[in-house]
């Protein structure tokens, strides 16, 4: 299972099952489906992301998945077929990589780094 922290608790998707595949099959995270139109991604017993199906939903932008090791998560997702729009690169806050899921949501893998330490 991949440990991530996210800034966005709500994600809308045109196709719920397609959106869930990312969390279930690629990130190996626990997913609890509530009816046929919504689901919750769970981590450590707590709800991390609420997903709802909405026709013609606009894709979300910059959904941040915070990880302690951006390179490791990047390689894991790449090996599971995710195509990255941006390979790990350096920003003032640390390291970031970017990809889009099947529903067009933009995800940012962020590894925060403290350069003042």
């Amino acid at each position, binding site marked *: 299972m991949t440990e991530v922290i996210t800034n966005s608790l709500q994600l809308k998707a045109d196709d719920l099952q397609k959106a869930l595949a990312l969390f279930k099959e690629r990130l190996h995270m626990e997913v609890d489906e509530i009816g046929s139109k919504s689901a919750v991604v769970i981590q450590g017993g707590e709800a991390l992301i609420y997903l709802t199906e909405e026709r013609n939903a606009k894709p979300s932008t910059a959904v941040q998945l915070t990880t302690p090791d951006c390179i490791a998560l*990047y390689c894991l997702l790449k090996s599971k077929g995710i195509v990255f729009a941006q390979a790990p690169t350096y920003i003032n806050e640390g*390291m970031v990589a970017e990809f889009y899921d099947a529903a067009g949501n933009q995800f940012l893998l962020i590894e925060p780094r403290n350069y003042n330490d």
Partner: protein
Amino acid sequence: MRYIKELSNRNRIVSENTCKSFYKPSDSSHYTIKFVLSGVEKCIINKREISIFPDSFAMLNTGTDYNSVIDSITPVNTISLSFDTNFVSDFNDAHRLTDNALLDGKSNQSPLFIETLYPFVGDIHYNVMNLKNQLDRGVDNEMLMNEYLYHCLLNYYGVYQKEVVQKLSKLSFTKAKTKEEILKRLAVAKDYINSNYDKNVLLEDISACCCLSVNHLLRTFKEAYGISPYQYLMQLRISRAKYLLKSTDYPLSEIVCLIGFENTSSFIRLFKQTTKMTPAKFRKEHYV
């Protein structure tokens, strides 16, 4: 315990946790970056001895004759990243040449870096620690290892830019070759201070080891690094005292001795001056 991972592109990762070892590479066809995560490793590069501590790393060019020695009561944790010469040449071309020059097939020269100690901080520190974490967990994924190595080399280029290229531009000599030669000698001076910080370091000894007169050394050192060799030594001692305060439970009197101070009260005064708190308070706030 020694872990060696040779990748299909001939890059290599060696991780070791040991109290005693002597290593001399059988072939010198690699560029090697040596990191020490705890303890100290001595490295003899072309008859010059340097000590690598956890706050610095050493870069060794392809073809360099060196050996490394670990002799410690407590285990020393090290990691070495070795890059095949062709890999570094390609990487160097990709990062330094224009697209047109690359298309014309120009260059493919093996770069020669200044073989010295570089600060082990920032992205290179994060990436090496993440790599070490994966090795400790037994991860053996070639794609992942290659990605870490690529990033570590990229990070090294960043460090080189800051520690060499920028320092070269600060030296007030006209000829590029003179600047380079002076910076190489200053790097030797800095390595001498880094490796002997716990002893009574004399300006004359530094001057003799780097083949610069005392006056020349003082002037050029200040030009390149913005501080005098003495100020550099004091900063280094304080920084290593901080490391010992954070990571060990040694009494203060022992730390004062280990970092080469003769007098505890003068150390406390300097520590307070630079960090705005006493060593005891610093340990209380940062002890891991």
